[in-house]
């Protein structure tokens, strides 16, 4: 298609890359945190709960700024990681980090809800059959909450596709490196007459998200049928 310039295509590709990575990498952690919140009780649980929710409450700019302070090459954590060659600043990895953090609350909530909906009696049945807690989790809890995990992942992906404020604050807007679709859209909107270019990108991003959504619905339906014990 030639109605998008190469610059725009790069933004689209980058956005996809960033969102997919943000979703996939944060998924295991999201599952872990959601499980901890759903099933364990430990001191500081409400604190963890709050921290997870934080990126949702804070203006994205603030989150981005905090990220810059902490994860920048000069920041305490970022500096440490940089020693091991892991650099976020001005890289697409940083964009993924920002997107992942912004999407995290959504992911955790959806997954946590599903964990809470799993019947503890089935987990007990697993235990009596010799499955240690980890195995019960892997063979009962996790598969039974797959619909919620899929839902959480798609929410996170969509959010990552749309994330802008924290990303641009943390890793700026470098074409080919950190210029995601939303950054590009923002740039177009800043100048008089940029609306039509912006609209094209909006359409692309919506299309991508819709495809992801449809896929997730299909997976979700199949999984839900299984979990409901129906033959599918």
């Amino acid at each position, binding site marked *: 298609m030639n109605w998008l310039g190469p610059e725009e295509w790069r933004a689209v590709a980058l956005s996809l890359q960033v969102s997919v990575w943000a979703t996939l990498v944060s998924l295991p952690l999201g599952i872990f945190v959601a499980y901890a919140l759903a099933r364990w009780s430990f001191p500081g649980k409400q604190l963890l709960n709050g921290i997870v929710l934080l990126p949702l409450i804070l203006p994205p700019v603030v989150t981005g700024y905090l990220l810059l302070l902490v994860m920048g090459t000069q920041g305490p954590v970022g500096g440490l990681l940089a020693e091991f060659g892991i650099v976020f600043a001005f890289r697409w990895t940083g964009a993924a980090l920002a997107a992942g953090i912004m999407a995290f609350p959504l992911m955790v909530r959806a997954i946590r809800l599903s964990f809470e909906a799993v019947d503890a009696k089935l987990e007990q049945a697993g235990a009596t059959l010799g499955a240690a807690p980890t195995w019960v989790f892997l063979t009962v809890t996790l598969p039974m909450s797959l619909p919620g995990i899929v839902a959480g992942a798609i929410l996170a992906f969509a959010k990552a596709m749309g994330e802008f404020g924290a990303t641009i604050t943390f890793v700026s807007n470098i074409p080919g490196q950190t210029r995601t679709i939303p*950054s590009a859209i923002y740039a177009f909107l800043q100048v008089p007459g940029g609306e039509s270019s912006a609209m094209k990108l909006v359409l692309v991003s919506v299309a991508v998200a819709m495809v992801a959504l449809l896929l997730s619905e299909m997976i979700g339906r199949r999984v839900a049928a299984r979990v409901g014990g129906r033959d599918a």
Partner: protein
Amino acid sequence: FAAASMANAMAEIEERFEASSGHDVVVALAGSSVLARQIQQGAPADIFISANPGWMDELEQDGLLKPGTRFDLLNNSLVLVAPGRDAEEVDISPDLELAGLLGEGRLAMALVEAVPAGIYGKAALENLGLWPNVAAQVAQSDNVRAALAFVATGEAPFGIVYATDAVAEDAVSVVGTFPPDSHSPIVYPAANLANRDVPAETEFLDYLRGPEARAAFERHGFVVVPH
């Protein structure tokens, strides 16, 4: 409606004006592009101060300005900043080895095609013939403050920002000022809007031009365009 970068100055002016005139002024701060679009969509605004002449032009074409009320209110200048309190000064000229100074680092700027500070900065660098060397290393932010933050945290070794911003940030120092002729003048045009008529409008516009406002603007690093 005023550009967000004028927040502090406007707060002060608002207070004084209210005290002296008895009128109640409400200042809405946001990015110039946002405000301009809102005005296009019928925002209940009386006065618009833009950080970007482009948006003012657009409104003028749409006939949204009260004819003859537009004037350039403020000037600003563009500076090169570096992290630390007393970074070494450089001489901004076509010979500046900016690329060399940057090394692997990034040059923090506002969006070079969208945000005024970025547009001016790019123009200046182009004029000086420096742009091609550094273009690939520019990190663009959505606004000047974010660009400044990159420098302040040491993430970027250099940044191009407004003098007004550089003044207030302790963690950076101005290492050079771009020659005024290297870019089109940085002006903040102000105008009375056409759609509404409040008696105090003109009064406030006049006040903005007055000595008290000038003092306030200057306290915050702006240069008031002389009339």
